[in-house]
């Protein structure tokens, strides 16, 4: 395991900059998740570190060594691809053994068998070692793909949305397993996803990537409670943060320069209107079982928030809404720090 430093890296495809002037430092044993929508440059970042793409400017250091111009084989990284991860003409065992049998590494067949056996147990696929890779279910395939990265002890594990093609239940299971394995190995890991739950639950630090620019990086808590700007705030939280203009509701001591107020569920107090005064109307209540989404109209704005499953609010109810320490953003969209 080793630390990875990316300094001022830029990579364009044609006219479009996929990654621009990226600085990212990943500490030894750290689990960093890059979160961003499709086309934000997440995969390109991984490919740059793996050596599948060459940066136009900037330096990449892996374990203190300048790897900017090294071939992929010489970089000592392991990559889990989003799909197409297994060799269809090989068995599960041979897939797992593939990195160990590379000419760059000379392991005895005995050592290969032992290592593959250990990893197969770790990713819980040891009962299927002789199956053809194509005969596995989606979850099993993804476990083998992760296992194939784990058989080696590289400087860094690079994972490109390894769970995105799985169904929700499997994704939740593998998410936990992956975090457990990473902690067990003390592995340095850079993990790319567009799923905020994966990011929040697994990351030591989350990096928010937009249009090739790293907007903010920090612990999940920091990213959630102190987003740098409107964009970062909108990436996290379910339902998404409500962005309301000032003046719509009593402004709760908004600092000067505030243009937009960001209010998540925990930033809103909602009560049934009494003695005639109301701020908005309940549009409808979405029942999700363990919780309810409350859709509300305030003036010309709509907002969505959570309520208890046993709420007595109903469609058409007139309600009173108050902010409770919300987030304030200026005209440029940057957050104004709370005093």
């Amino acid at each position, binding site marked *: 395991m080793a630390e990875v430093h990316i300094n001022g890296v830029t990579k364009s495809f044609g006219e479009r900059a996929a990654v621009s002037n990226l600085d990212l430092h990943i500490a030894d044993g750290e689990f960093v998740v890059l979160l961003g929508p499709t086309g934000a440059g997440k995969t390109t970042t991984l490919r740059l570190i793996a050596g599948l793409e060459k940066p136009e400017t900037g330096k990449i250091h892996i374990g203190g060594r300048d790897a900017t111009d090294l071939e992929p084989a010489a970089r000592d990284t392991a990559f889990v691809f989003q799909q*197409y991860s297994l060799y269809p003409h090989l068995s599960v065992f041979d897939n797992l053994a593939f990195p160990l049998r590379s*000419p760059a590494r000379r392991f005895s067949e005995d050592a290969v068998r032992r290592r593959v056996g250990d990893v197969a147990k770790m990713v819980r696929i040891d009962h299927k070692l002789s199956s053809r890779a194509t005969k596995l279910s989606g979850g099993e395939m993804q476990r083998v793909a992760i296992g194939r990265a784990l058989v080696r002890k590289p400087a860094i594990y690079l994972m490109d949305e390894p769970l995105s093609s799985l169904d929700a239940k499997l994704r939740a299971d593998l998410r936990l397993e992956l975090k457990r394995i990473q902690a067990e190995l003390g592995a340095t890991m850079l993990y790319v996803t567009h799923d905020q739950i994966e990011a929040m639950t697994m990351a030591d630090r989350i990096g928010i990537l937009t249009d090739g620019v790293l907007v903010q990086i920090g612990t999940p808590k920091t990213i959630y409670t102190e987003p740098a700007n409107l964009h970062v705030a909108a990436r996290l939280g379910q339902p998404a943060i409500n962005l309301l203009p000032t003046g719509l509701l009593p402004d709760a001591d908004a600092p000067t320069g505030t243009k937009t107020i960001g209010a998540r569920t925990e930033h809103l107090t909602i009560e049934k209107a009494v003695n005639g005064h109301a701020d908005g109307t309940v549009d409808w209540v979405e029942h999700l079982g363990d919780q309810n989404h409350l859709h509300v109209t305030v003036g010309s704005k709509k907002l969505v928030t959570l309520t208890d499953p046993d709420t007595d609010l109903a469609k058409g109810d007139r309600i009173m809404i108050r902010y409770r320490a919300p987030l304030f953003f200026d005209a440029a969209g940057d957050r104004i720090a709370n005093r």
Partner: protein
Amino acid sequence: MSLTTAHSVVAPTATSKRIAGTIVVVYALISMVPLLWIFATSFKTPPDSIAYPPKILFQPSVEGYCNLFTTRTRQTPDYINSLGPATTFCDETTRKRNMVIAGPSNFLPRFVNSLIIAFGSTFCAVFLGTLAAYGFSRFKVPLADDLLFFILSTRMMPPIAVAIPIYLMYRELGLSDTALGMILLYTAVNVSLAVWLLKGFIDEIPREYEEAAMIDGYTRLQAFWKTVLPQATTGIAATAIFCLIFAWNEYAFAALLTSGTAQTAPPFIPAIIGEGGQDWPAVAAGTTIFLVPILVFTILLRKQLLRGITFGAVRK
């Protein structure tokens, strides 16, 4: 699905299946007639082979096969009687026609020439085609589209248009009537087909496989060998069959550029002359034997061929 009583809109009905099946069988039978005719002729005697109306039922004979593999000389009955008893069936048949076997014919060496040239050129075309197709598929080749079109355009020209220049070139280079010359020529013709077919196949193999292998410590060539090649076998087999069929059947260049040691079977077979003209049973026997290798090769690779022909028709 067949258990339900509901009719599927897309599945063929029993009647349409029966009609389609009948059409296929009838068409196959019509297509087979020339082959059956040749096969039957190869077992006729020379008089039977030119009888009119043609004989459907006849006394089978292997005289055609005897004549194909031997050369014979006419002798007087006295001389033939002075010889010992006939040792083989062919001996006996030949003597009945007042002839004796003088030696083996050139058919076997010509057949071997065909095998060497067809399989040799197929190997070269597929080998070069695979590497070129991989290059076009994976790397940014400057003017790739123009180059690919240029490669394909070599196939648009009728071969006979370049026959004379090639003949002169080959004479200068000493490649006339050599197996090497024919292998080079057929490779040059086939490599364009091979590049185009194989590029389609290799394009379909996701590049993540090689990238994964390269990250895992393999060089590009090793990654190609370990991950791309095993997955391209279907395409390679289909391409090899197409190349082999062309090289095996090619007549015009073979007739022009080979006459002796490197002559292939196609120009040799029609030139088999018997007593008083064409020896049709021997020609038919030669053709029948000539069909065998390509038949065996195609049957061995039929699964790949079928997938190869229908390849690209359905997106995954």
